[in-house]
């Protein structure tokens, strides 16, 4: 590690020692990876989705590997708000990192309840709104794909978030992700994280049946990285940069090279997800690899390369 290199970044007022964080749902509540990686080396920790009530999740099989990636249909399995605060928050406090809690729900009331309960938890510095999975109570329209709904839910959660910054996680399953990004900014989002997984399928051709118990799942891993880099670039140039809203970029990051693509495309923060299943320690090698790159390019701060893509 080059000690003279400044890796620190700021996400809407929350200072991070470096841009790296865990992608929601791939890192549990931090204790699971204790034997495999020192998570204190990260900039921030993002939890698995929390819902108001505990959720058991979907039927097995829940994952299947596809070329250069995987599909998952876990079904937001989590311990629920009450146990999260009682059992998991103390573990996260021991970590000593800013924590962003990913919040999911099936109704706006669910989101509001979780957001209110986390207002006074000191270690929690932000909420990451998961509006890529659930359905609205009336109509069943996905929150994350209808710009008007996105603005409305963002505004409602923002009004009860208190000290916590509001990060909205965007779905790539839309015609134009810049449009949803714009809708969250209008609703008062402090930061954007993108991208969530792509709705996808894998089929057992012999049995003529879907492989996943849930029929469809979300595609993640290296396979989606080029699309994710493009979406970060598009949202950065059209929405985030003009509005001054930082982006947390994710989607198939596995090596420092991949992380650098996201930084150059306009991401301030970086989340690593699926790659953690293979090697949790890759977080540290990615961080060190970014520092090496900056040294090689004569940069003193990682902030010099955020959005530094040259297209002319």
């Amino acid at each position: 590690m080059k000690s003279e290199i400044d890796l620190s970044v700021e996400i809407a007022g929350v200072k991070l020692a470096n841009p790296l964080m865990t992608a929601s749902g791939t890192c549990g509540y931090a204790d699971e990876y204790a034997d495999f990686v020192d998570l204190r080396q990260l900039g921030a920790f993002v939890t698995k989705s929390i819902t108001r009530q505990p959720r058991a999740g979907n039927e097995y099989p829940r994952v299947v590997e596809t070329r250069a990636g995987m599909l998952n249909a876990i079904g937001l399995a989590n311990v629920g708000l009450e146990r999260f605060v009682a059992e998991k928050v103390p573990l996260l406090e021991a970590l000593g990192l800013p924590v962003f809690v990913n919040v999911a729900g099936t109704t706006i009331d669910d989101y509001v309840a979780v957001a209110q309960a986390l207002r006074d938890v000191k270690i929690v510095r932000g909420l990451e709104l998961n509006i890529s999975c659930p359905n609205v109570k009336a109509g069943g329209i996905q929150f994350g794909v209808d710009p008007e709904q996105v603005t409305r839910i963002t505004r409602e959660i923002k009004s009860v978030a208190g000290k916590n910054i509001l990060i909205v996680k965007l779905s790539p399953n839309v015609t134009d992700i810049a449009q949803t990004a714009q809708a969250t900014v209008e609703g008062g989002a402090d930061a954007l994280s993108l991208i969530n997984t792509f709705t996808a399928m894998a089929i057992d051709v012999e049995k003529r049946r879907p492989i996943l118990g849930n029929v469809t799942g979300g595609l993640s891993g290296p396979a989606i990285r080029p699309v994710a880099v493009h979406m970060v670039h598009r949202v950065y140039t059209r929405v985030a940069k003009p509005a001054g809203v930082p982006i947390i970029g994710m989607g198939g990051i596995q090596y420092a090279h991949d992380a650098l693509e996201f930084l150059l495309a306009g991401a301030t923060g970086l989340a690593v997800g699926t790659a953690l299943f293979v090697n949790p320690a890759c977080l540290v090698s990615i961080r060190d690899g970014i520092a090496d790159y900056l040294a090689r390019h004569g940069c003193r701060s990682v902030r010099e390369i955020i959005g530094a893509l040259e297209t002319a």
Partner: protein
Amino acid sequence: MSNERLCPEHYLLRLRAAEFPPTLAGQFVQLQCRRLGEQDPAREVPWPAAGPPRLTQAELAGREPFLRRPFSLAGRRDTPAGVELDLIYRTVGTGTHWLAEVVRPGQRLSVLGPLGNGFAVRADKPRAALIGGGVGIPPMIYLAETLARAGKQSVAFHGARTAALLPVAVAGDAVSPAGRPTPCVEPFARADVPSVVATDDGSLGFAGMVSRAFESWLDAERLDPSSLAVYSCGPEPMMRAVAELCLTRGIDCQLCMERHMACGMGTCQSCVVKIRDDTPQGWSFKLCCTDGPVFEAGRIVWA
């Protein structure tokens, strides 16, 4: 160290590590089924100073899987040269075919583990029956050694579709067609554990399911069910038959379950097993990787 073919579908992979944490029979490791080191520096070094990572032809051909693959431990030896781990795998998909075709002595592999919980050796049961089916037999080898050291009197039952697919060395002429235990399976005989072989097609030993072979042994022995502990690993229909038999006869039984999984560390939440409990619906999802893979047979809710 070595990667030798045991039968048309099974291979024995011997690994040596300078050091490795303590392990138990029933635990598993997550193996990366892809090249490491010199052939592909971009994958394992943080960021090559020379330039961007380059994709290898193998990766482009899609023959190397991205996720790790879980394998139960078939044995462990602590030697002056390091810790030796035995893994026996069956060639079923991309990862295991890659292992069979590519891995040669001297090659380095990335191993994550030990993961999961091992079998709990029941101190109060002087006798043990080990029932393995197909690729569920390997953890039984490790367990046989453990039970021998604990002074238990064990018998092993091995099932396969056909004789040619048994993942262990069998002295064919020593096998009893009637299902009587004999020292016919080498790794078990070494631990003084006699074996019964059962094949579905009757090509060797007892003709029929291994659970049936176990049942007829049980009837012939007439032993006190409270003196016996059963440990089993294999295809689910086989384990279910073993579990139901043990439940009926009041025999303590532990099963080592198999699930597709991504991480093996309890984070991806994919390897769920339905386990009976006192919740209103009567069961909860438990994770095969960190809550198991060994579960009490009576608590499993079968699909």
